């Protein structure tokens, strides 16, 4: 469903020069699967997901969603994804209902089908109490629900969650994870980025650990623990990160030596 091959994104940065936010990242996500993208802040998770949601263009590499290239057929890709991110806020001066309805109509849904879908979504996500509350007056949890409803309104086969649990209290976060699990059971293809390990452990079918723009390792939880001879996932994560950093340092040092 989602296929990413050698995805690279570079930025011109004043301080660091040309900077690779994403460096030859490749992975595949199949329907009915939750793919976890785990990494510290600044690992490049958001950039990858922004490229997948066609908001950013890849510098090189290919990413396809349902067979559509994100760089060349962005409109088709956007029809097939639901994107929830920290950066995708909701309108302050629109009520929950209006907001979700607006995006449903942008997706070109007929008004009968849309109303039916909205009722179902609002029931499912328990949003009926704040149906007519404007976005500006909502709590963080409510906003997140509206965002999810907005992403789900056109019933997309692919869902992308970027740090979706950030800033939510335990109750709402738990609720959200429940929703995500339900979506998986419904056969959706999900990609979920976070820097919280426990979420990944509980939720994800397969995991990729990202650091400094690269995927260090990926596989199911069992595969990873077996491969690295580490039962504790947190330890595994840290050892991967530190060994990667050591490696880059050594390469740098070697490079320096050669230069000298």
């Amino acid at each position: 469903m989602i296929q990413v091959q050698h995805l690279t994104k570079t930025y011109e940065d004043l301080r660091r020069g040309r900077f690779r936010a994403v460096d030859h990242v490749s992975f595949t996500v199949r329907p009915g699967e939750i793919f976890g993208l785990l990494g510290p802040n600044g690992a490049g998770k958001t950039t990858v997901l922004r490229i997948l949601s066609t908001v950013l263009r890849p510098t090189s590499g290919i990413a396809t969603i349902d067979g559509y290239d994100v760089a060349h057929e962005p409109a088709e890709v956007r029809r097939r994804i639901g994107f929830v991110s920290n950066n995708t806020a909701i309108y302050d001066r629109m009520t929950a209902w209006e907001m979700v309805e607006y995006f449903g109509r942008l997706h070109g849904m007929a008004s009968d089908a849309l109303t039916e879908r909205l009722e179902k979504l609002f029931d499912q996500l328990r949003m009926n109490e704040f149906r007519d509350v404007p976005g500006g007056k909502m709590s963080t949890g409510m906003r997140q629900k509206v965002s999810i409803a907005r992403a789900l309104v056109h019933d997309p086969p692919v869902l992308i969650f970027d740090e979706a649990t950030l800033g939510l209290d335990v109750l709402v976060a738990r609720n959200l994870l429940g929703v995500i699990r339900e979506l998986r059971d419904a056969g959706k293809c999900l990609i979920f980025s976070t820097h919280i390990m426990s979420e990944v452990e509980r939720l994800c079918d397969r995991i990729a650990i990202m650091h400094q723009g690269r995927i260090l390792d990926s596989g199911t939880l069992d595969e990873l623990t077996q491969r690295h001879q580490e039962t504790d996932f947190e330890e595994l994560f840290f050892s991967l990160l530190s060994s990667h950093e050591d490696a880059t340092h050594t390469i740098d040092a070697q490079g320096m030596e050669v230069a000298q």
Partner: protein
Amino acid sequence: MSQSSKEKRKTAQRAGRPRFNAIRLIYTREMRDQLRDRRTLFTIAVLPMLLYPLVGMLLLQIAQFTRQHTISVCVIGVEHVTENLESVGADSLVSPLLVVQNEGDDEATESARVHPLGASELTSFRFPKALWDSNSNIDVYAYQAAELSRSGDLETRAQDWVRDQTFDCVVCVNQPLAVDVSNFSAEDLAGEAASIGVYYNVASDQSMIAKDRMVSILNRWRGTWVRSRLADAGVELSVLDPFQINDCDIAPERTREAAFWSKLLPFIMLVWAMTGAFYPAIDLVAGEKERGTLETLLCSPALREEIVWGKLGAVMTFSMMTAILNASSMLVTSSFVFNQIGVGPAGSSMGAPPLIPMLWLLVALIPLSALFSALALAVAAMARSSKEGQYYLMPLMMVTLPLVLLPMLPGTTLNLGTSLIPVTGMFLLVRSLVEGQHFEALTFLPMVAVVTSGCLYIATRWAKRQFESESVLFGDGDQWELGAWMRHLWRDRQRAATPTIAFGCGAVILVALFFGKLAVTEMPDTFGGIAKLVFLPQFGLILAPTLLMATMMTTSLKTSLRLNSVNWRVWSLVSVLAVMLHPIYMQLAGLIGEMYPLSPQALEAMRPFGEHIASAPWLSVILLMAVVPAICEELAFRGFIFGGLVRNNSPVRAVLVTAFMFGISHGVLQQSISATFMGVLLGWVALRTGSVLPGILIHFGNNALSVSLGRIAELKLPGMQNLISVDAISQAPQYHPIWTGCALFVSVACLIALYRTTADLDVMENNDVLADRIISDQPVRDPSLKQYAS
């Protein structure tokens, strides 16, 4: 198979095209969103509704204050200006009287009036009707000078009264005005001329009003007095007015009525259209960026183009609404106020403006609003927050305001030159429509329409580009730092200039030239001086920055200056062009000279320049005027700057921008325009040949012919006489029209040949560009390059 692929292609095409439904949906949402915002509503609807009536009321108040406020005036020395028993002898000459006693004293009002000093001398006085007939009141208090002077100096007393605001104005007559003319000689009269002191306080409005009224009363009094004296002396009064001025305005009724409004109203509307566009634009782009809702919209199926159109529509609606509301509010208020006051700038014709012609204004408002909205949207897209957006308002205003102010300048009328200036042309067109000059308007309509739609196209394209640019939409909030930037420039040097460096180089050259021009205070009067005047800017201000930047900021001088060799076919074509383009250039310059004529002063100032050039040795003139500018300017504009800009995926823009910079660098408007056209051609040649060298040759040929055409004509070569003649009136050499025609034909043929010759170079050029792309890690976006990419 082919069927399905065709269908796929069709759907793909459809997917890339903006859908009207989506645009309308976005437009409606943005409108609703803005209308729900109280701040927007306040600035757009409530403010104008309140502002103008408030200002109007204030004006009305001021007017009423000036006209109807009762002021108190004290006349000291009343015995000199009224019928008075004590100075019977002089009485016959003080006529008419300045102050008369109220007939039929109204005891009731008299007793009600409390005199500040309680002085017994007070009687109720007033100015006679002949001197003051207005419904506003002047309280007149009068004192005998003789009585007051007993208790102190009259002058200090008068000053004290004004200072303490006992009276608004004090008129002090301390000597008898009535003189017996027969008793004095002319010299005596001049020396003895009586004076009347008027004391007032400039810091007090009331006192100023009183003083103005008093002066006018005194003037009128003096006038009647002079007349009566002259009449006494036997002068016929009609002699005093040798003629009367009979002014008659031949402008038709409509024009007269519209004259005032047709100037003011468009200005008000345009300024408000600008302001009205900017605030919603900031909120709809920068504000959404700040609140994080823009990304939500960007990852919805709405295309970028649909988003831009929807937002543009909303901004435009607000811009127009603001303009219309403000204009109508002002219209209503002002006609009401002027009616109340009864005076207007154009007398009685002020009233209400003619409504039907004003509809033209609304028609013109649509494209102008759209233009401002697109500009505002594009500029606002650069801001990361609403606050930052506000900072961009000023520069945008600074750029557009002169275009709005230009038509307000006296003497600016609709002609070919002004009609080609964006916004200004539209403004003037509307004015002539409002004034009922339909024919004139119709003549310039095509020009204005082309210019306006051109600007509109560019502005909307810019707005769309902004929405497609990642660096604009997701630019990180990195602090710009000089040190880091310098390091970045040095560290990330490339073979040729980057677009940013190219723009920077252009800006440095233009600014340096501007200040260089300021530094020249007078025209040199020797050939050596002229040589210095040409050499210094060419080498110091154009070539030096270019070479410096090329060596410092790029790794290859040859690549960055585009010093690439070209084949012999290109050389031969270009040499023909170098000669053949000149007649066309002359024709163009002549045309521009007619459209925007040089002032006689400027011509006079340039004459010695031409004379020196004409008398100097030919070789040095060629070196000075042709070789040096050709090399310096071409290396800068078609070399370094062009080389940087052309990497930006947009050769057309590179050609246009360098042409524009090249034009501006010439300084004189007329020269700038023709140089810009020339620059487009040179840029095209530079683009096709991939080298700066052909441009140098063409530039050289053109300049060389310009300075030596006169000499060629003087040679009177057999066969050339008919082709190059000297104009009998202006002494300027010119080409025969047939020769110009031939030149045009040959030039076009050469250009086509050049296009064909360089077609096979395209592949190589594209490969270079592609390699550059791949090295610099930028995505290949140009569709024409895709085939080479794969």
